[in-house]
């Protein structure tokens, strides 16, 4: 038996081994295919493994860790998980020439910690903020206006003592901050502010604008120092280190709209009492529902209950009559003084009677990253429209800027077909990227190289105004404006209206807003009516009997279709006042009796707000020393209870709420990115930006003869970075095969060894 067994075990093991080997190989083959298929499916469904997805070289430059301090980065820890929730309600009542707005911010703390919430929000530029109320449970605490430092001390004290407190501060005339201390776990605190604002009028159209989000600002880096010499001429000076010293205070975290749903739901109600029979009432950027209780009243609400706070709300209305009233006169009695608000629209001369003056127009277009998305489309369309309107006897030039700039022609050139064509292709090729160095562009635009005094010199500046160093720009305008007039065109869903109004005021021009491509033609036509028709100049105001403190103190020129808006403080409401000026070559005057003025609301606050604005302008223009300007602003603010650069509103609930020993966490409330903006263009660019070495390249006049002249904007890289186009597939497959062979070899070797025993 044993022999047979031995024989069989000698004959069959060889066969068995071969079969086993074959089976193992087969199993391995199947395993490879299975794994291959699984890997394929996984990688198709979720791109999990970055090893094979060759990333483009550029992406490595965008590491968040490379961000400078002061750039906006979303804080992933804390803010998202334990974030304080915010809801906003805006309630506006328009009564004739003024509006009163009540903004309620609801801060809810869903977390388990005691929280201090800080929310940075935009303010209507002409808005005079006078009221702060904090609602905790059923208690309402009314805030007081204090000097800024004092208000901060009161707030900090309350914060330390565990009392609920709210503080409203002005960072810019159109950026405010609300801080709310000691919101307990699960608690809700309401903070309500109220402001007064004049209604804006242009031609036949009245409008109001509610900004809802502070657009991320480009804050130039403090690398380039500027020097302040002492006024005594001793030659000693101090370097100013930072053009935006308060950059942290105006840079709240911004959510990437691709990664987060919109936040800060806002509801808006406008009660419109125009004082005349209303025609068309239109919301430009939001769908609304309108009720009409009577001919002069409308109640406008959002069609959706709430919208995310990511764009300005703009409402315009027109009278049912063909022409808007050309004069509006309103009065208010406060304390022992009367306040007057007057709207006077000067007559317009017939186009035929007037030969348009030849002009030199310098167009400046902002193609920085913040203009990415829809803004650059609007800006280009506006500029192309403007180029189309030029006459052959006009001169023009085009400047584009981001953190570099290009001046298209060495000096302004005639607006003939060839030059227009060249400019059109230059503008057409622009792309939005890079930082926003606005000051050098403004300087280049104001340089009056042609110096032809027969030409009216105009600068048309298209931008979203998303910069933090507004003051530097204003100083540039003041120093260099010469005989140029500056017309600002505010582009996009959340333009910096303060920059637009103040720059055009200092530049003795006008401004307009373009919030969508549909608005381009209408608004640019309006702007060109202002550019092409003579302004009403040499305006003066005289009161027959009353002692008047009028603002603006020096009446500015008024452009076509704009009303002259005057506010005055009077000792008595008697007699009349006369406005004199020139429309083109012709003298013009109008006399208005004060007795006919209608009762208005909040006019004293508007007068004070405008006086404060005057003092700030005088400070910029060095007509007032900083100390004198501050003194004037402070006195007006305290008398009329307004929030300004130097005064804040503070409210403290005396009942302590946070138990001693409980920690307080800070929560900086994130905001939305303005609608139509491109997150990467703003933040990607800022992160990889090296300290700006300002490049100024001029298109050479002689370069026009060569056809190969580069019209591509300097912002574009000179050469293409080619993406990474190698995979590691071969490497992996070869390595895999080697391992398989090795295992096979080991397997066979093991079997041999096993069998040998």
């Amino acid at each position: 038996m044993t022999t047979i067994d031995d024989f069989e075990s000698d004959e069959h093991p060889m066969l068995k081994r071969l079969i086993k080997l074959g089976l193992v190989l087969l199993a391995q083959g199947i395993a490879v295919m299975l794994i291959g298929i699984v890997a394929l499916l996984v990688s198709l469904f979720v791109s999990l493994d970055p090893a094979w997805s060759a990333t483009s070289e550029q992406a490595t430059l965008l590491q968040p860790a490379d961000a400078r301090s002061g750039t906006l980065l979303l804080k992933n820890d804390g803010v998202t998980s334990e974030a304080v929730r915010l809801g906003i309600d805006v309630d506006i009542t328009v009564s004739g020439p003024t509006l009163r707005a009540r903004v309620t911010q609801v801060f809810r703390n869903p977390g388990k910690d005691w929280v201090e919430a800080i929310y940075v929000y935009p303010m209507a530029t002409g808005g005079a903020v006078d009221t702060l109320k904090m609602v905790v449970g059923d208690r309402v605490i009314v805030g007081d206006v204090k000097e800024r430092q004092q208000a901060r001390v009161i707030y900090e004290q309350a914060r330390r003592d565990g009392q609920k407190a709210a503080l409203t501060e002005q960072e810019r005339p159109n950026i405010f901050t609300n801080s709310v201390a000691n919101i307990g776990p699960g608690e809700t605190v309401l903070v309500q502010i109220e402001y007064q604002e004049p209604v804006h009028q242009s031609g036949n159209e009245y409008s109001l604008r509610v900004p809802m989000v502070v657009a991320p600002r480009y804050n130039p880096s403090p690398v380039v120092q500027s020097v302040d010499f002492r006024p005594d001429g001793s030659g000693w000076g101090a370097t100013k280190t930072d053009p935006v010293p308060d950059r942290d205070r105006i840079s709240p975290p911004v959510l990437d709209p691709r990664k987060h749903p919109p936040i800060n739901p806002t509801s808006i109600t406008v009660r419109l009492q125009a004082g005349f029979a209303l025609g068309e009432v239109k919301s430009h950027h939001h769908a609304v529902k309108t009720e009409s209780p009577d001919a002069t009243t409308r109640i406008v609400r959002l069609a959706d209950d709430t919208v995310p706070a990511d764009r300005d709300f703009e409402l315009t209305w027109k009278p049912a009559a063909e022409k808007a009233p050309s004069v509006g006169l309103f009065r208010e009695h406060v304390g022992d003084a009367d306040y007057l608000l007057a709207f006077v629209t000067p007559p317009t001369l017939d186009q035929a009677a007037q030969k348009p003056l030849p002009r030199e127009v310098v167009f400046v277009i902002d193609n920085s990253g913040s203009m990415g998305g829809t803004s650059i489309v609007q800006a280009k369309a506006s500029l192309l429209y403007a180029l189309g309107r030029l006459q052959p006897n006009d001169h023009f030039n085009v400047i584009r800027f981001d953190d570099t700039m290009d001046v298209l022609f060495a000096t302004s050139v005639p607006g003939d077909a060839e030059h227009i064509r060249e400019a059109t292709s230059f503008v057409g090729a622009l792309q939005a990227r890079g930082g926003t160095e606005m000051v050098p562009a403004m300087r280049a635009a104001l340089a009056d190289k042609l110096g032809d005094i027969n030409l009216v010199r105009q600068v048309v500046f298209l931008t979203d105004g998303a910069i933090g160093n507004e003051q530097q720009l204003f100083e540039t305008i003041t120093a260099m404006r010469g005989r140029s007039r500056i017309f600002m065109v505010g582009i996009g869903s959340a333009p910096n209206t303060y920059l637009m109004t103040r720059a055009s005021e200092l530049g003795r021009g006008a401004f307009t807003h373009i919030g969508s491509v549909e608005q381009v033609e209408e608004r640019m036509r309006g702007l060109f009516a202002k550019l092409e028709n003579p302004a009403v100049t040499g305006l003066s105001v005289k009161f027959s009997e009353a002692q008047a403190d009028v603002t603006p103190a020096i009446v500015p020129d008024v452009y076509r279709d704009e009303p002259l808006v005057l506010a005055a403080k009077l000792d008595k409401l008697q007699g009349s006042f006369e406005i004199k000026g020139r429309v083109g070559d012709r003298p013009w005057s109008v006399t208005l009796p004060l007795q006919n003025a209608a009762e208005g609301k909040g006019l004293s606050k508007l007068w004070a707000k405008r006086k404060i604005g005057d003092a700030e302008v005088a400070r910029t223009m060095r007509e007032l020393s900083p100390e004198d300007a501050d003194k004037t602003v402070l006195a007006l603010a305290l008398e009329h209870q307004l929030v300004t650069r130097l005064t804040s509103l503070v409210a403290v609930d005396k009942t302590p709420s946070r138990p001693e020993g409980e920690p307080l966490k800070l929560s900086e409330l994130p905001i939305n990115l303005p609608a139509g903006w491109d997150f990467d263009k703003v933040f990607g660019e800022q992160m990889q930006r090296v300290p700006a070495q300002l490049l100024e390249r001029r298109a050479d006049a002689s370069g026009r003869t060569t056809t190969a002249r580069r019209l591509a904007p300097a912002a574009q890289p000179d050469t293409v970075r080619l993406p990474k186009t190698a995979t590691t597939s071969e490497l992996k497959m070869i390595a895999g095969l080697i391992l398989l062979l090795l295992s096979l070899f080991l397997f066979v070797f093991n079997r041999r060894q096993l069998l040998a025993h």
Partner: protein
Amino acid sequence: MPRFHPPLALALVGAILFGDGASIHAKAWLAQVLLERAFAQSIATGQPVKPWSWADTWPVAQIEVKRIGAQAIVLAGSSGQALAFGPGHVEQTADAGERGVAVYSAHRDTHFRFLQHVSIGDDIDVTRSDGKRFRYRADHSAVVRFDASGIDLATQGHELVLSTCWPFDALTPGPDRYILHATLIGPVNQAADR
């Protein structure tokens, strides 16, 4: 039988590696099949059509080199994700047929493997998603660094550049790129072509 385990583990790792490497090819091939369908649809509708619902890119053009029978569907964008499925149209370069230079980039081991067989003088046809077809002729090739391509974006001509990694048979990624430059001859009359 504890001694059987090391070879088995080794086999498993090897299989995974091999499968992973093979999946790149499988994905590149499968995606092109899906892309062809989407591209045909987008020519028919005139709208960008995503090849699968969760794709973050869409076909923009088709490249064809008739002589060697090679073709590929080009995707919008040149991110790594897009390049895994097909050649990418590098951002900010012109569209095919337009003034300027259109740059298409793809992996040397998948979609642009055929680039090594394209010789100077070959015709390269590019069909855009609006159905228009343009014929380019390859006129020179070069090996450059990724960040010094020398491609002139502001060119006044109508140009095409196909780019991939160099050298073709290398195993590891490197900084060198092979670029094939072509100049537009003119639009192709498709009816006559068929």
